[in-house]
Each structure stands twice: as C-alpha cells, then as structure tokens.
C-alpha cells in the first residue's frame, strides 16, 4: 500500500509538471503585420513598397478582360469558363452576379493592395528609424497607389460605389457613391502630392524608371489626377494637372509608368500574354475593331489576323489581341498617349477646338494617319477623340468607361440578339 501511495504521489507530481509545459511555435512561414508596425526598418518598409508595386499586378488581366469584354473591345474564350461569354456579354437572360469571379477577384486584389498601402503608411508613421522626408516619400507613394487602386475599383462598380475608408478591417467605412468616390480619390491624390513636395525617396520601383524620385512620382500623381479630373468633368483642372505631369505633345507615346513582369522567384509573368493562333484559351479582338478602323492605321497591328477564326457560343473572330506580345511585356499604368488624349478632351470640352484638333492630330499622325479632316465642332471632335482613345488605348482598360462617361454605351454592337451591355458591376456579395 505504501508503495502505491508513493507511486500515486510521484505520478501526481509528474502530471503537474507536464501540465505546466506549453509550446508556441510562432509563425514559421512569413513575417506578421504586427512585426512591421513596430518600428519598421527602412528595408522592411522597402519590402512593403515592392510588395505594393508587385501586388498591383494581381488579377490585372481580369480587370482588362472585364472592361474589354463589356466595352466590346474583344472576347475572352475559355473552354472551361463560360461566364466570360455568358455573364459579361449578357447572353440570353444572363446577368452579372456579385458572387462571381469577374467582380470579386479584381475587387479583392485592389483592396489587398490598398491594405498594403495602409500598412505602409502606418508602419512608416510608427517607424523611428527614418527621417521625416523619407516618411513623406513612403506615404506620398502609398497614397498615390491607393488612389489609383480605388479608381480601378470604382470604374467597375460605378454608381454602386466603393468603400473609401478601409483602414480598420473590423470597422469599415460606408460604401460611398460614384461622385463621392471620385472626390475622395482626387483628395487622396492631392494629399499624396503634398507629401511628395517635401519627400526623400529611399526606395526603388521596378516599373517607374525615370520617375523614381520625388519629382517623378509627383508627375505620375498628377497624370492620374488628370484622368480623375476628366472623369469628374473638371476640364480646367485636368489641364492644370497635365501641366504638372509628364505630359508632352512631342514626347514618346509610351512614356509613363508600367506594371513590369519577370520570371524571377516570387515574381509574375504578364497574364495578358497569350501567343498568337492559340486554341481553347484565347483573347480575340472584337470583329468591329478591324471593321471600324481607318485604312492605314498602324494600330491594326494590335489585333493580328489568325490562321483560323475562333468561335464559341455564337461568337467568332479571326483576330487575336496582340497588345501584350511577350510574357514579360509591360502593362501601362498611365502613359503619355493617354495624357495627349486627355489634353485633347479637356480642350474640346473647353471649346479650345483648335488645340483639341492639334492634339488629336499628334495621335493620328503618330499612327500613320492623315490629319483630322472632319467637322470642327465640339460634337464631332468628341466622337473623333473617343475613336482615337478606342484605338490608342485598346485593351488598356478604357473604352467601356469612356463610352459610359459620354452616355454612349448604346453605340456598342450586340453580337447575339439577346446580349446586353452592362453599365456597372454589382458590389461583391460580401460587401452588400
């Protein structure tokens, strides 16, 4: 019996000892946000900057396919994904659904970058290891990108609005209207501009070559501001913004900033690249692209002729979209050709028709066309401007938004009798 008591006592002691041991392995796979918010070093902040620039590329193909398909720039045929040609084109009774990938994925990807920007702003603000000027550099960059990402989201949901105040994941701000959204985006760009005015840039960006300093980032910021201004029909402001940007009637059309791609570890290849003459998974130019183009326009090269037409579900085209011609080709964020067209648009709207024609001719002549010879009226020039935008910015995410701005969505061709042209995407179901 004694032995028994001893053994039970020893056992109890062992159990008590055992109960007091605990293990916590921490996160074995990646850093945590908390670590970055606690006095981040410059290299940690730079990691956030690169992650932000990298993340902007996520799902960019889906955004371009959304805008390009509804804007009848092209078709995305996929043997495994019917919704590109059913829902997006409004086939038969199909409508857009807030639970589907074409809105949930781009929306989530853009807000993920916004979260990264907010983390960067907070981490830079909390850091005691950087100068005030450097802090302004980080926040100026973060706010500019945040504004751009909000704009892309708003372009999809339009009057359904967006959420602007998302700093606290547990207490999200309200969904704001289209107009309020644009106002907030413009304000954010202005605030970024203020930060950049007294900033030092301690980081390097991949797709911003030539704009990787405070002055350069300010120019990019103003270029985006000019785009927002024309969306808001603030024509004079647009011209002011253009002047502070990298705009130049005589500068290279491709001057600007881009999403760049590479095959490195953790990097991405251009998801918009599909080789020519593929079958099954293809991106085709809408037949109207070639039908409506003026003879001699070199922009026909953006839609190259296929060996054989591709067909799906009552749709057919014999031209591939050939804007992104390799897996490492860049995708423009904003570039001078668009700025020239914004310059034309603002001037036409302000009735400086001669200046408008001058800008349009820069585009036309740049693409092997003769100078504009049509009517010099505001109406005719707007039509011409929209046409030049259609061809110059083909598959860069504009036509649908441009026609919507001018209430001209009804001009888009319907390929099947029951197709529809949508004006906006519903909010993702998780936001409703």
């Amino acid at each position: 019996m004694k032995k028994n008591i001893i053994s039970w006592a020893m056992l109890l002691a062992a159990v008590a000892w055992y109960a007091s041991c605990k293990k916590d392995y921490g996160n074995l796979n990646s850093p945590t946000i908390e670590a970055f918010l606690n006095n981040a070093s410059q290299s940690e902040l730079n990691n956030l900057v690169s992650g932000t620039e990298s993340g902007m590329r996520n799902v960019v193909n889906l955004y371009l396919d959304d805008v390009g398909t509804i804007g009848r720039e092209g078709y995305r045929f996929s043997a495994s994904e019917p919704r590109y040609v059913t829902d997006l084109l409004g086939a038969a009774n199909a409508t857009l659904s807030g639970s589907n990938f074409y809105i949930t994925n781009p929306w989530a990807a853009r807000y993920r970058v916004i979260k990264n920007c907010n983390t960067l702003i907070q981490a830079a603000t909390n850091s005691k290891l950087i100068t005030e000027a450097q802090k302004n550099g980080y926040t100026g960059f973060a706010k500019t990108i945040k504004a751009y990402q909000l704009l892309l989201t708003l372009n999809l949901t339009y009057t359904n609005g967006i959420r602007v105040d998302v700093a606290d994941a547990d207490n999200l701000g309200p969904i704001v209207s289209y107009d309020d959204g644009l106002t907030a985006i413009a304000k954010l760009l202005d605030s970024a501009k203020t930060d950049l005015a007294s900033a030092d840039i301690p980081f390097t960006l991949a797709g911003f070559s030539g704009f990787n300093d405070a002055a350069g980032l300010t120019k990019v910021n103003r270029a985006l501001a000019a785009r927002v201004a024309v969306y808001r029909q603030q024509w004079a402001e647009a011209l002011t913004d253009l002047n502070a940007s990298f705009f130049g009637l005589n500068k290279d059309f491709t001057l600007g900033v881009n999403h760049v791609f590479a095959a490195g570890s953790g990097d991405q290849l251009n998801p918009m690249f599909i080789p020519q003459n593929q079958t099954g998974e293809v991106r085709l130019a809408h037949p109207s692209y070639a039908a409506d183009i003026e003879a001699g326009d070199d922009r026909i090269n953006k839609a190259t002729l296929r060996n054989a037409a591709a067909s799906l579900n009552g749709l057919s085209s014999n031209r591939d979209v050939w804007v992104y011609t390799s897996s490492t080709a860049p995708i423009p964020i904003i570039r001078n050709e668009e700025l020239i067209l914004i310059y034309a648009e603002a001037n036409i709207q302000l009735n400086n028709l001669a200046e408008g024609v001058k800008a349009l001719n820069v585009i036309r002549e740049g693409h092997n066309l003769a100078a504009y010879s049509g009517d010099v009226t505001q109406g005719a020039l707007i039509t011409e401007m929209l046409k030049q935008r259609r061809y110059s910015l083909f598959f860069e995410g504009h036509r649908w938004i441009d026609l919507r701005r001018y209430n001209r969505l009804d001009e888009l061709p319907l390929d099947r009798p029951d197709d529809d042209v949508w004006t906006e995407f519903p909010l993702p179901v998780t936001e409703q």
Partner: protein
Amino acid sequence: MRRQLLLYFIICTLLTPLLAAAQAITVTGKITDAKGAPVPGASITVKQSTRGTITGNDGSFTIAVMPDATLVISSTGFKTQNIVVKNSTENLQVTLAEDVAGLDEVVVTGLATSVKRSNLANTVTTISAKELNGTAPAQTFDAALEGKIPGAYINQNSGAPGGGLSVKLRGVTSVYGNTQPLYVVDGVFIDNTATSSGVNVITSALANGATTSNQDNPSSRIADLRPEDIEHIEILKGASAAAVYGSKAAAGVIIITTKRGRQGKTRITVSQDVGFITARKLLGVRTFTADRAASLSSDSATSAALRQQFLDAQSKGQLYDYEKEVYGNTGFARNTVLSMNGGNENTSFYFSAAQRDEGGIVNNTGYRNSSIRLNVDHHINNNIKIGISTNYINAEDDRGLTGNDNAGVSFGIALSSTPSFAQLHPDALGNYPNNPFAASNPLQTIALMRNHEAVNRFITGVNLEAILQKSKASTTKFVATGGLDFYNLQTTALFPGNLQFQAVNKGTSIQGFTKNLNTNFIASLVNTFTPSDKFTLTSSAGVTQENGDYNNLLDVATQVIAGQSNVDQAGALNATQFRAQYQNNGIYVQEEANFNDIVSLTGGVRFDESSNNGDPAKYYTYPKAGISWNLTKMGLLQNSFFDNIKLRAAYGQANNVPAYGSKFTSLVVSNIAGYPGVLVNTQEGEPGIKPERQNEFETGIDFSLLKGRLGFELTYYNKVIDDFLMLGSLPASSGFSSKWVNAGNLRNRGVELGMNVKPVASKNITWTTSVNFWLNRSRVTKLTIPPTPQGSFGYVLGSFQLEEGKSATQIIGLNGQGVGVLGDAEPKFQASTYNEITFFNKVSLRLLIHWKNGGDNINLTNLENDFGGTSADYDKVTNKAGVPDAIYRIMQIGVNAQEFVQDASYLRFREIGLYYTFNKLPVGFIKSIQVGASLNNYFTITKYKGYDPEVSNFGTGFSSGVDVDPYPATKRADFHLSVNF
C-alpha cells in the same frame, strides 16, 4: 518529453513485483463452434495477466499459464467463455456459442480500457478483416470502408489511382476546419494531410496565380495503409465515445488494430490477386453530322471550313470517340501478399510483405503500393508485455491531370470541346498535332506529361503493458502506447515544352518535397478493482501528447531545358515553402463501474491544450459520461421473447483545434523585378481563435432474440458543434478575403439502425446478414458572420452557403426568380446490407449493397460538354423552348442553376465475392487453398448524369459533391488465390 516517458518506465519497473515463483503449466486445446467447425483467430487471454494467444486455422492453441489461472476465450460472433485451469491440461475442448448480435465482442472505451459490447453505452461500429477486405478488395484502404459504417457519409473524390476519399461521421462537424476523422493505428496517430503537387500552376483551377489549390486532386495519405494487415477497425463516431481522444477527435476516431502473431507453429499465407479495372460509366459523345460540325462556328468562313473538315474526316474514316480513347482503357491489377505468423510462449510475430500494382483507365496512370510490416509481441516476464509494430510503405501513383481547370488543359476540359472529327493522333514521327478545338491535345498531354507522387513512409508504434500490482481484488496496470509516423512525399509534375499548352512557359517542372513527422504517446495507469463477483470498478488516468512537424517545399521551374526535369535545368524557378508545427497536450481521468453486468457507468474528463489555439497555455476541459442498463440481466424480462435488452445513453465533448497559423496575419512574398516585396495575406489572423467544441448525446436500445441469432441496435444522436471553425468570408474591401473564425453553432441529429441476423443456419448452408440504415440532418443554429456562398462557383452555377436556421449542406443558387435553395448535399438516408452465405463450409458468397437516397451534387461536367458542343444528348429536343437541349441548358446560365444541382442517389453493388476453400489437400505442407472471384463497385443504379454520383472536385473538405470533369470512377473485377502453409 522523452525524459517523462523514461520516468514512467522507471516507476513501473520499480514497482513490478517479481513473480515467477510458481511453476508454469502448459495448456493445449481446440476451439470449435456449435457445429464442430474449428474457430480460427479466437483470442485466449489469461485473466489478470498480459498473456494471451490466438487459435490457428484449425482452431488449436497452446498457452503457458500459472495454475488456477482463468482463461478468457473470445472471438467475434461468439459468446465469451471463461475456463479455470486447475493443472496441466491437454486437449482442452471448448465449444463456443453463437453471438450474432456481437454482444460479447470487446470494444474500446478509453485510451487504455475496453469493455464487452453488451455493457457499452455507445454504438461503436466494428469492421472485421473479412468485412473490410474479404469480399471484393478495393484499391485502397479508405475505399474499402465505403458502405460499411452506419452513420458515415463516405465519398470518393475521383477515380484517380491512389485514393482520395472524404469520410464524414455523423454529419459535417466543421465547415473549413478538419472534417475528417482521426486515424489511430496500433496507438499511433496517423497523418492524413492532402498535399498538393502544385498542378494549379498548370490548370489555374484557382485563378489567382497560386501554386496550389484545393482542386489539385491529391491522393490520400490514409490510403497508404494495407487493408490486408488489418485485424479489425473500431469507429468512434462522435464525442460521446471519442472524448478521451481530445484535441483531434471532434470528427470521430477510426481505431485500426493490425494483425498480431499467434503462439504455435509458423503459418505462412501467400495470396495473389489479378484483376481488371474499367470505367464505371462513360458519358458518350455527340454524333456529328456536316451540319452539326458547321454549327460550331457562327463565322461563315470558319463554319464552311468545319463542314469540310468533318466531310474529310468522314470520308477517310477518321471520326473518333476521344472520350473512349482517353477513359476507355482497361487497367491491369495485381496484388501479392505474403504473410507469416508464429511464436512461442514469450514472443510472437506477424510479418507481411505485399505489393499491389495497378494501371488506370487512362494511359500512363496507375498505382503501386509496396509494404513490409513486422509486429512483434514479447513478454519480458509474466507481468510486462511489450508490443512493437513497424510498417514501411512505399506508394507511388500517376494521377493524370483531371478536374477543374481554367487553362483548358485537364483531360476532361480538353475533351469537352473536342469534336469527333478533330485529328489528334500523332504522325508517323510521333509528333502530335495541336488541337484546334481546345487549348490542349489530350492524347498528347497523356503521352507526354507526368503527375507522379511517391511516398516513403515509416510507421512504428510501441505498446507497453505492465502489471504493477496484483491482489485478489485489485489489479493495477501501466499501459503506454506511442509511436511515430514519418513520411517523405515527393511529387513530380512534369509538362515538357512541346506540349500544346506550354507555348508560353516552354516546359514546366513542378517538384514538391514534403517531410512530415507525427509523434504521439499515451501513458495511463489503470486499476481494476473487483471486491466481489458482482462489482467491478476500472479507474484510469493518464497523459497524452501529440506533435506534428510538416514541411513542404514546392519548386516550380519553367522554361525547362528540353528533356530535363531537374528544377535547375530551367530558365526560371519559383519556390514556395510551407511549414507547420504543433503540439497538443492532454491529461485525462476515467472511471468505469460495472454492477454485475446489469448497469455500467462511465465517467471521464480530459484537459487539453494546443499550440494552435489562440492561447497555447489554456487548458480546455472535455467531460464524458455514459450509462448502460441491461434489463434482461436484471431479471426484469426473464423467460421472455428477448435474450437480451439493453438501454444506453452517453454524453461527451471533444474538440478540433484550429488549423496551424489561424492566429497570424501574415505578409506573403510578392517580388517584382528582383526587388523583394511583401504583401498582406488574403487571410486575416484571429489571435483569439479557439478550438471548436463538439457536444454529443446519444441514446439507444440494443436487443437480441432467438438465442442471439437476431441482434438489433437503434441509436439516436444529437451532436452540437459550438464555435465551429470556418474560413469566413470578409468584405474584401478590408484587404482580406477570409479569416478563420469561430463562426457559430451547428447541430447534427440522426438515427442509426443496425440489425444482424442469421436467417439460415442448417448443417450445409449458413446465411448471415447485417442490415444498416442511417440518416442525418444538420442545422446551423447560430451564425455570427453574414452568409456568403462557399466552396463552389457562386450562385450562377449553384453553391453551398451556411445560413442560420438552414441545413449546413444546403445548395443555393439562381432559381429563375432570384437566389433560392436548390438542393442539399446531405442524403435523405443511407442503407447498406452485408451478406455472407456459406455452403458446405466451402463455398462462400459475400455481397455488400449500398443505397444512398438523396443528396445533391453540383454537376458541371455535363455543362462543360454542352458548352464545348460535344455532349451526347446535345441535339435532343425535350425542353419547352424547342431548341437543342444543350443550347437550352446553356441558356439557363445566369438565370437558373437548378439544371446543375442534380440528385446523386445511387444503389450500388459495392462488393460481390465468391470464394471456395479446399481444406483437404493431397500435399501435407499446404493446409488450405482458397480461390475466389470478386466484383468491386461493378453495378450501380443511378439517375445521375455525370460519370458517377461519388465525386468531389474540392477534395475532402466541406464542399464535396462538386463535379467538374473528374477522373472517372472505376470498377474492378478480381480473381483471388490464397494458399496457407
């Protein structure tokens, strides 16, 4: 922890009284049934000792015991007998009485204790070796469970070689937590992680650029186990039985006991199976005509070209049924098993070596499993017994490329848009043409790709039982089990640059290296106190620990140098690594009281902590209690119609720890142009994450009639899961898409009915049958997050969605008016029957039929075919719009998803086997030969339109039953030969 084990060991060896004073005597004997036939495999144990043996094929046994020892003789299907041995006994003849109801079967009740079924407060399903593997063997162990567990919803994910099944016991117990039961083999907790081979890189099934997804159709790690080595399986379906397994038991526990050695002459069995594997069903293809070919394009020039292509193909006789070419092959299967067992009074062993090698229905797919097992039991002395189980497994499979895909490359997706007049065959030089109708040429893909998994696994367990103290009324034992499960998994997915779809990547090699080590131990002290014949008290207490260490490295190389597969032979390399480590600690006490076999009471409590919980130091408490009350033994119903009636009730709690990393908000790598970048993860962490807790109450009545020839079990359960873990959808504007949350409560209620009957028991013919019926209904009783579509493809195509007050497995989607309920994955009920008819003790016919009534799938396979213009019934007109049916179905997209939510009921002849045994043979060294033929999953009656109603594009998780071009399910016919030496 090792130090602690050592400590226990020292304690118990110190306290071991040195017996061996008296002289051992030898007992030999033979055990037979009522008809005089020998009972092989009957267990003979010595009361209050660790000694025991098992009878041989002729029913004989030899055992050394102390004088006055009590032998306990038991065998499944027979009543247990106690025999007191006075002095040396030769040729002890024991006749066992039948027990069809299984009342005397011994069933586990705790981590170190067990009880006769007649005193059990729960229903514990037991599957014997014969039921598991003796009728028509399935390809893998997990597939062999199908239709055999009342209360389970078992669903095969696809027909791909190498397994992959989802097992849900008594309804869904978690939403995105672990829904799969814990598997314990001889005390070792077995890992069943599904590791993706990274084919999402190729298929883009999850279209966000991720390397892996839950649609990558990985094999099942539990399928590594050899069914031939298994003696029996016990299934603890819910917390009321499984509470003492604590942290990992919320989805139930499947306890597997492998075969052990028997005392006596060494017995050798060699068995050889050969068989053929074919597709259960093919969908058929559209019959093309020139007009139909032309209608594939709306462009007039293309249309004319298509018409010409068809006419050319037709005139040259080059119209093909590509579905048949891809899926219509016959796989050859062989399986060889050598097993040996024997031993003396102190040491016995079981050894087996086996290899299974099978081809798939798709060329270049297949499965191969080689295994060696050695189980050794040794008595150090009369009071200490040690058992060691070791198992080495090498399993390899080639799984092909099937399932959902957004790149047009999986076999099914490529076939869906490939008409019969496409020319896909290679030219004289062996070069495959590009498929103009799809992104890939499936014949080329099958010929050139490789999706290979190879696992090397070592499982070993130690079981130590030591009697510390022994007196007339009390016995105290120390029981420790523990072991490790280590495996190295290598996945190789190789897509050479000359494949049609490798135009951009110019060759992709994805190599995954996974190392996993699980270790665990359970150390218990058990005291059995028997102050009189009428009362027994069993007290047990112990500690448990489980450790896991998983490390997965996945390299994706693109621009691969022609003919090479090493990841360095490439122009670009992308690497990802995922690690997870956990430790769970538990302490438990359990008390069992038995009052003269009339009333049995069980009570226990377990305390658990886990490093995966938000607070790793917090102990959670899980109680359990049970009562069984035998009315006949009490004398209430003497001389009545009933042999035995028992009422029982049990309650228990168990938990399921959160997934590793649930508490962290991570930043993941996202680089650009050589600059290292970090991007917030799409999953937000929840620092306060708690385990989900399951409360289960079950009650039932068991009775047997007609001298035990009819046994009946009826069980009702109510299982409530509190704080169920769910990867909740967040408003994506927060920057996060999902977050692990304790999202609410859900409930499963169900009924299980079981009946064992022996309708015929004549001298020459016996027929035993068991019939089971079960059903489950779930309801979400509380949901703290807004309901969102989960686990499928949104409302347009039908989706799961948790909603308060609704079934947890409801399927909702567009219904023409808006969004509404379209179906439910939960079957209305399931039933199965297992029958064995024996003629003249020589011919045995065995049959397992499984009926699943109701339960809907989301079938998108047929839609893909409609969409690609190739479905067999494309041109039929049965709809009200008067257009071809396929066109009509496509018109439903975006309006009504009812078309895609289909009843997946089936009546399946799961297993049919016919065996003949030769007992009297001219050659003396061969004891018996068994020959047989079997059919596995051969006949299915179903209205389901896809390949098979059993399917799951998303693997083993919550959302099973989504059908997107799976590897078609297979059936098999086997011939068996088994020789006993």
